[in-house]
């Protein structure tokens, strides 16, 4: 916050201390830390709420909670049932149960999967890296491709390219993820088999280092291409709308009156302002993207959270399902936190008190 006026004995209103280049420096690290602190507290509260939601879901499911937790293996062996009752303290009064549940989740114990007969947290955490890799790779590429297409098409709003981009963005949004995935599998499986259509690496290859990375990349081509098609469509649509809106603002007319070249006006002024809503959308888009990733993993057999979700649905393995919901909510919260802070760095107007784009 540039002008620290609300401290009791505020000195004469001062501007941010003059500093060198770089937009970030100008904000003052104190104000950024305060904003991050506020948002962090907010995120922890959200996480707690998700845990409580999980608890409520388990207890509101039809039937005895122990049955629910045991899932498909339920009722087969009395020892398991007894062990579940003891672990979750199901015979205790409800508030006590919530406390036990929250305490165990906080200590990293998300319960035990009887189908995979291993602790849920370990099971899930092993599947997180491939999903994160797939998502971050796809989100970045989708953002780059989408924004570039959107910006280019906003240069000449009713040119053929612009109509093409609009059509692409509509088609990208309208096609269901699993359908696109399967169509790509069909194309690259049957007619142009240059990419593997299943799994994450050649089981037989056993490559090391760079070769291994390349192999994973080849395997990731189709799943990420599916995600990119979907998300690039949304980015291009928003980028085009945001650019057109900014190009009609007064400060663009001022820039032109200063005699700046059209590209300088376009990139130097319009794009800088147009990026802000796009950053916001990237944050909000992370949740739906994760959902898309789950489906794509199921289609392409990518060993991430998606496959785990698919299997645990079949086995009605609630601890795993709820664990995944918690972990993915965490990932979304972290993503929102990052985009919020990125938003503050770009936009000098955002004060400390006010929350970021989500507010």
């Amino acid at each position: 916050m540039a002008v620290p006026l609300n401290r009791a004995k505020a000195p004469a209103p001062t501007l941010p201390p003059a500093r060198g280049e770089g937009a970030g420096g100008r904000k003052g690290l104190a104000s950024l830390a305060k904003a991050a602190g506020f948002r962090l507290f907010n995120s922890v509260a959200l996480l707690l709420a998700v845990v409580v939601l999980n608890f409520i879901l388990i207890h509101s499911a039809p039937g005895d909670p122990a049955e629910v937790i045991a899932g498909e293996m339920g009722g087969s062996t009395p020892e398991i049932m007894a062990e579940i009752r003891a672990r979750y303290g199901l015979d205790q009064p409800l508030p006590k149960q919530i406390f036990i549940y929250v305490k165990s989740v906080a200590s990293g114990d998300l319960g035990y999967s009887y189908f995979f007969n291993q602790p849920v947290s370990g099971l899930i955490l092993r599947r997180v890296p491939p999903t994160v890799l797939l998502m971050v790779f796809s989100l970045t590429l989708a953002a780059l491709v989408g924004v570039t297409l959107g910006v280019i098409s906003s240069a000449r709003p009713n040119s053929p390219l612009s109509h093409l981009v609009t059509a692409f963005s509509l088609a990208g949004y309208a096609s269901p993820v699993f359908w696109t995935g399967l169509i790509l599998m069909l194309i690259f499986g049957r007619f142009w088999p240059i990419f593997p259509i299943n799994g994450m690496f050649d089981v037989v290859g056993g490559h090391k280092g760079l070769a291994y990375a390349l192999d994973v990349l080849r395997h990731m081509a189709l799943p990420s291409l599916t995600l990119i098609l979907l998300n690039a469509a949304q980015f291009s649509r928003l980028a085009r709308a945001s650019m057109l809106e900014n190009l009609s603002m007064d400060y663009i007319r001022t820039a032109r009156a200063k005699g700046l070249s059209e590209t300088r006006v376009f990139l130097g002024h319009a794009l800088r302002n147009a990026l802000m809503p796009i950053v916001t959308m990237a944050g909000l888009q992370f949740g739906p993207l994760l959902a898309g990733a789950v489906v794509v993993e199921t289609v392409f057999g990518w060993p991430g959270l998606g496959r785990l979700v698919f299997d645990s649905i079949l086995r009605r393995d609630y601890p795993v399902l709820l664990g995944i919901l918690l972990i993915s909510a965490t990932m979304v919260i972290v993503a929102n936190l990052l985009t919020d802070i990125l938003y503050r760095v770009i936009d000098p107007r955002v004060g400390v008190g006010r929350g970021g784009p989500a507010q």
Partner: protein
Amino acid sequence: MSPNLHRVPDPKVGVEVDPLGAGLEAPPLGAGPEAGGDPSPGMPVNRSQRPLERGLAFPGTPGAIKPSGASQSRYRRFLRLFLKNPAGLAGAILTAIMVLTVTLGPGLYGVDPFEIVSAPFMAPDSETPMGTDYVGRDILAGVLSGGRASLSVGLFAAMLTAVIGLTIGSVAGYFGGFMDTFLMKVTEFFQVLPNLLFAMVLVTIFGPTLFMVTVSIGLASWMNVARLTRAEFMRLKEMDFVRSAVTAGATAPRLMLATILPNALPPIIVAAAFDISFAILLEGSLSFLGLGDPNRMSWGLIIGQNKNYVLDAWWTVVFPGAAIFLSVLGVCLTSDGLNDALNPRLE
């Protein structure tokens, strides 16, 4: 400013009133406001009994100019604008076609989607226009009757998101303060949960009936409409015509429903239309993952069942997927068309 007919008053008539004449402190003629008299202020009076002061006989002031344009009804204006936009028109036609095929199709085609028609993986031919699936059921029958589940879930889920979103958004936007902060925290909480995952958990726990699928999708995707409604209510609440209704004595419910909501509807209707397409996609994903209503055929279900045989039986996946694609595309284009036709002239 709309071009208006310039009916010129006869210049002679428009001569201004003699400055020292009526303009000065002439005592008011006839029934002045206080003549009407009011029962003692505190005492509540039945609304319709109060006399309406008719004010004074008094010549109209010069400079009467007739505003322009015939008084067309809003619906004709809406239709005119909507039909002018090609995308909207195409969308409306596409959606209509999909709805018709889904409602009339099963009756006309007459084949039961669950009935084994012939050998599995039959390629599309005259007999089975869309071929058969992995157990030999007719894909065309599946597509026709599957649409009923997908589109109805899409419509009703979108209605649910609209109801929840409108309520939370309008209350948060209008009342502000603590209510706003609390409701926005709730919205933020729901937004953190990836919508498909949340819907999956709900359906898994509470059973994959069509009703539960609709409710889960509704619960997982109302946040956009809520945010949009809140933003519109906060913007309109500050405008003069709402303040004028306050000064005229409008109560909070009337302000929210009769004054603010009609002006807030256009962007909300567009968002709700988008939610229909979003819900269809979500229903597709759910049934693709095997969470749809088992005894109801659905587009996602067909694709989910045949996904492993896509390489050698492409038609089992391509046609149902195309059905989803076309209906979602139709709804999207219609909502784009709505956007242009509905945007108010307020700006």
